[in-house]
């Protein structure tokens, strides 16, 4: 059981990383957005493997929408969304590579030296988890949840206000 879990985790993990790399390697912007989507979907699949059903499915669902929206913004704001020009759109590449590499190595060092104590505990069943999460959201964490809702609402309004076209009377 544990081996199968580890294998699935590794499989989806590799998929997630690979798609993540494709995001910045492909020239086609739409492909880039869709690659990010599949990277996020693979992460959602990892959640499912880790028996976080609700979160996994939620991740898979939300990212489909978010990344599709991302795709249309790529098309709107990119100079060459089809990637036909093979243009290079990076800067400070060396710095970025170093930063990414150092981040990766540092995280790996911490992970592999931390010495987590096993064995892996059991988790409640999916029904129970959903019930517990519901009680958490609408009980102890209600305030946080409501704050998050308010945050989203504020962001929606703010983003719309920022993005809305200035009207004729405003500019005069």
């Amino acid at each position, binding site marked *: 059981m544990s081996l199968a879990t580890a294998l699935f985790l590794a499989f989806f993990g590799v998929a997630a990383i690979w798609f993540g790399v494709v995001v910045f390697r492909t020239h086609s912007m739409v492909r880039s957005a869709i690659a990010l989507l599949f990277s996020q979907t693979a992460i959602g699949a990892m959640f499912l493997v880790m028996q976080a059903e609700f979160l996994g499915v939620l991740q898979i669902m939300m990212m489909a929408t978010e990344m599709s929206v991302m795709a249309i913004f790529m098309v709107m704001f990119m100079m060459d969304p089809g990637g036909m020009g093979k243009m290079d759109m990076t800067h400070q590449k060396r710095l970025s590579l170093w930063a990414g590499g150092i981040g990766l190595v540092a995280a790996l060092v911490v992970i592999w030296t931390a010495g987590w104590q096993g064995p892996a505990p059991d988790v409640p069943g999916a029904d129970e988890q*959903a019930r517990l999460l519901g009680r958490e959201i609408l009980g102890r964490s209600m305030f946080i949840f409501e704050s998050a809702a308010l945050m989203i609402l504020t962001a929606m309004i703010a983003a719309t206000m920022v993005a809305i076209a200035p009207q004729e009377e405003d500019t005069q």
Partner: protein
Amino acid sequence: MSIAVIILALAIGCYAVAVLEGWAVHGRLSLTRPATSALALLGREQILPRTSDRLFFEVGPVLLLVAGLLSVAVIPLAPGLIITDLAIGALFLNAALAYVLVALIMAGWGPNGAYGMVGGWRFLGQFIAYAMLIVMPITAVAMRAESLSTTQIVLSQAALWNIAYQPIGFVLFVIAAMGVAWLPPIDLPTGGGDLAGGVEAEYTGARLAVLRLARLVIIVALAGATVTFYLGGWLGPWLPGWVWTALKTLAVAAGMLALGSRLPRLREAKYLELSWKLGITLALANIFLVGVIALVVPI
């Protein structure tokens, strides 16, 4: 075992919906036409448009089919007759349907044609319009069932079907479902008079067959979901449960198709306007009402 039975039922359902669609669009009820059409499509040449995004062109229809099949997985045909009875089945259905959008964007972008591309982006543009109207009625349904499991949702309707308990939710859900399956009058991504086939315009032969099959699966899945959430699933007197599910599903599909051929195509802005201003308000009201009823009169 149950997987085989459900796949068989799905195949029959798809065929029946294809027959119904022929009746709605071409005005003739022919039992053999879907079979001949499928055979003929398989025999036709497959054309790859020039400078297409080959990967998207090929993956789009397949992803659409996969999304459809996944959404069927959580729809119960009868007690115990379900591919996977997830504790969060209703949410899973949403997640699977979200990939219909991704698949259509890919299929629209892939062939490198103006009609397909506009069709794909149109579908994205209307997405929030239907996605919210699928999720919010389901929320109300789950509130009553106190579970996201589709089986539990059916069982919760033993006393009174949700269509009577929350009729607003039913109407919103059916309309949103028609949007997801891009059925007329909301067939914005493929509208014949608008976009000459839109997303489908560049697909030929077997790829077109996959695309059409995927759409049939999605229609069946959505009709099945409507039955599960609002029409009491397998519940019904005299007949065995699976017969009830099948009959109700076909009836819902026929209703959606018949509605489509009698209404002019909605334009996108209007659809968005209706969904945002009217639909979401009604959906919130529905959630509120269901909450109040659940507290006051427990049925």
